[in-house]
């Protein structure tokens, strides 16, 4: 994925912010599963999902404009989805002078609805959960510790590396470099090479700093995050209601 990535987290003290991260992670993933499993013909179900997300956004005091802005990431697939009815196979109809495929229209709706809901849910998760907490939640959920540790270091140093890359780009462009086509790729690649060496060497130094302070392969445990039944209950509202809607949708002819 290209383009600038800015952290989505918006600090706050709402109910949603305070929920333990592992609850939120399970809730959002379950919600996404419910959405994806819903038959596309049931428009009302998707309306329900959108309402549910709206309620979460309101509870978390996340403005709609914020979510909308961050959904720009979706754009490439929106374009693809729009193209499907034009190039799709199957029975066709005429609309506004353009021939559209009926299964294609269904497919486009299916993808658009589900992808949009999925992205919105992810945005709400990221907006209300500090990155550090998200990792701790993942650890609680028994994601392999090594993966969590790798992710911790990645997050810690993402900005540092990105910063270095930016400085190299500024240095290049200050000397008149413009990436026009593939022929300029070697210059970018050499920067990438330099960036790799610096990243790797920093990784070595970090490892060394860890060893210097007695690291033997196991990260010492730090914070304890337990979720009460009430926390799980609150978090379960979103996916729970979504599953109810999905089940109703499935059982209808």
């Amino acid at each position, binding site marked *: *994925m*290209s383009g600038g*990535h800015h952290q*989505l987290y918006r600090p706050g003290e709402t109910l949603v912010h305070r929920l333990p991260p592992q609850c939120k*992670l399970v809730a959002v993933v379950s919600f*996404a599963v419910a*959405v*994806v*499993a819903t038959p596309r013909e049931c428009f009302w179900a998707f309306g329900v999902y959108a309402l549910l997300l709206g309620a979460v956004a309101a509870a978390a005091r996340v403005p709609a404009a914020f979510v909308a802005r961050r959904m720009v990431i979706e754009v490439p*697939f929106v374009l693809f989805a729009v193209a*499907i009815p034009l*190039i*799709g196979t199957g029975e066709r109809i005429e609309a506004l002078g353009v021939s559209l495929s009926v299964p*294609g229209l269904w*497919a486009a709706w299916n*993808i*658009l609805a*589900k*992808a949009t809901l*999925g992205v919105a*849910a*992810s945005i709400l998760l*990221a907006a209300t959960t500090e*990155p550090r907490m998200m990792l701790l939640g993942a650890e609680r959920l028994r994601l*392999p510790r*090594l*993966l969590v540790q*790798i*992710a*911790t*270091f*990645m*997050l*810690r*140093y*993402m900005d540092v*590396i990105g910063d270095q890359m930016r400085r190299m780009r500024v240095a290049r462009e200050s000397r008149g470099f413009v*990436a026009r*086509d*593939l022929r300029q*790729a070697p210059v*970018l*690649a*050499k920067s*990438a*090479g330099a*960036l*790799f*060496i610096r*990243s*790797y*060497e*920093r*990784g*070595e130094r*970090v*490892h060394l700093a860890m060893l210097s302070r007695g690291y*033997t*392969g196991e*990260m010492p445990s730090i914070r304890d995050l337990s979720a009460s039944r009430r926390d799980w209950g609150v978090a379960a509202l979103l996916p729970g209601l979504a599953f109810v809607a999905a089940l109703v949708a499935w059982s209808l002819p």
Partner: protein
Amino acid sequence: MHVPDGFFDVPVSVGAGVFAAAGVAVCLRGARRELDDRTAPMAGLVAAFIFAVQMLNFPVAAGTSGHLLGGALAAILVGPYTAVLCVAVVLLVQGFFFADGGLTALGVNISLMAIVTTVVGWAVFRTVTRAAPGSRRAVVAGSFVAALVSVPAAALVFTALFWLGGTAPIEVSSVAVAMGGVHLLIGLGEGLITAVTVSSVLAVRPDLVYGARGLARRLVLRTADGEVEVGEQEPAPVRAGLRPVLVGGALVAVLLAGFVSFYASSAPDGLEKVAADKGLSANAGPHHLEDAPLAGYGVKGVDDQRLSNGLAGVAGVGLTVVAGGAVFYAVRRRRRHQDRAIA
């Protein structure tokens, strides 16, 4: 290539998820062997590097631009197991922290971008460098070819997954051509950038290129006592071991049995056809196990055709593995007893 929610149907998403989880599990152990206790910070920093480098856009054709995927590059620089972990972590972070890529599509995304590109890239790289061991040029050339091939390979697997369970009614051949075509061009860019990156790292810190181990020159130290030659310490060769093969094989078997089998041709196989042609099948009576729970490659009581087939397939694989494993184990024990008796 980040796939959003809803693009693939549930069986494919789940299947890919299982495959991705297993692949990552295998690589967690492999990476520890590659890097030992340095794994967390090193892989983390390399993941940050890949994340940064994926922002390198290069134009491929009028209006379209591609960006580096990085799987092959990572494999050549830090080894295949670590590379898979790094890209997988990048995808997980992108999914959960940046809402980039559907959460239900993580299985597909990790399979395609973390596993397929890395494995294919590494395999191609090793093939090229084995043909010309000890040559720096082979390493750079291998990097180019590996990255070049890895991208369309991922596109091909994407197309296969699309054929299995894509939710859009587009001709698979069109998808194959479009995806393949674009990604061939992206592969060119990726190949070029990968080769030059590896080459530039080789020039300054050859010890950092995993794929170039064994290329280092011997060093000479000039000390007060005269010249002392210091050999480059070769890192212990990573022995892949049998387990990844077993796990990988089991996974492929489950995937094939569980999902692909349903789409297998229902046309009679060679034997049946010949039997039918020669009029032999008229004599075939019903099998005496016709009423067994798994008869007819279906699971009794499960009505959905696809699910029924899939479960039967998985059960079949499971039983075969258990039976085969039992035989293998029994034979090995017997052999060990014999060896011990001789020794």
